[in-house]
């Protein structure tokens, strides 16, 4: 099977597993879900290193989102 297809399937499967585990643990904080999705995305992408048509918009967007989540948590802790 094509490496790109394996990458997409792996990413989808990872998200599915993460969602199921978090639901089992009754997690209701959206930032926890997003943080795990971001870590999952970067891990799978580094593992497979797929070819892309364009610059990694998803990676950039998720990185900015992750930075925002961390900033909110740090500010909450300080204030």
């Amino acid at each position: 099977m094509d490496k790109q297809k394996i990458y997409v399937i792996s990413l989808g499967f990872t998200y599915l597993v993460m969602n199921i585990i978090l639901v089992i643990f009754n997690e209701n904080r959206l930032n926890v879900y997003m943080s795990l999705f971001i870590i999952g995305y970067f891990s799978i992408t580094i593992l497979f290193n797929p070819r892309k048509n364009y610059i990694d918009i998803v990676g950039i967007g998720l990185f900015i989102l992750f930075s925002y989540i961390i900033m909110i948590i740090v500010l909450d802790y300080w204030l």
Partner: protein
Amino acid sequence: MNSSRKDKHSNKNIDRSTIVGLGLAVMGVLFSEFSYFFIKSIPLTAVGLSSLILGIVITMIPGNSIPTSYVRSFIKESYVNVEEILEQFDAKERCIFLPPRDRRIFVYVPIIPNQNCTNSVAWKAMEAPIHVLTEVDGKPGLMVFLPIPYEILSKVDQGSMPEEALNHILVEQLEILESIKAIESTNKIAIKMSGSRVEVEFPRTKKVLGSLPTCIAGSILSYILKKPIILLKEESSGRDIIASFEMLNKNG
């Protein structure tokens, strides 16, 4: 008639994976918004967001890409012609990699045995007529066209660093090697290529042009350095190859 052919071609560019990706992304946005604002369920919102991420990823990935193993097979089998030409002319001398001309990648192979190819001969070969059998400095030689598409070389800029260019094409694009390291000295470049995934079992081609990764590396170097390059030495050990090249300067 020409415009209808163009329309068919442009429609093929929006392939199935793009449509699926966009559909998944749109569905993800709608589902997550609905789940967050109406149902007020975080897990369902997360499902929508993961669908959105997957949809965008699917859109970004090239659809209908030819498996790399097929590309490697194509390149490998296309060296049959090169082997036949070298056999036909009984070429035994090491080739000189020349910068591409008219988007064609070729090497100059002297036919006369023990012909000492000086720098001036190599630079004259750059101007010689591009025929299979040509003449440089009054001596016959071969211009062997390599089965390497110009589009692959043009993925790097002329003037870029050798190791960076070699890594980008041989490791990242063609996936022929696992890793590559290059060391430059005055006029020489030594390259260590690790984990070669393809090999051409044509003895004459290997003797004259070097192994397949070495041959492509030589073409890349002559393209980025805009100079003739000669392969000095090549040593293989399992899947690792060490090759040293010399840059033939005009006033050398």
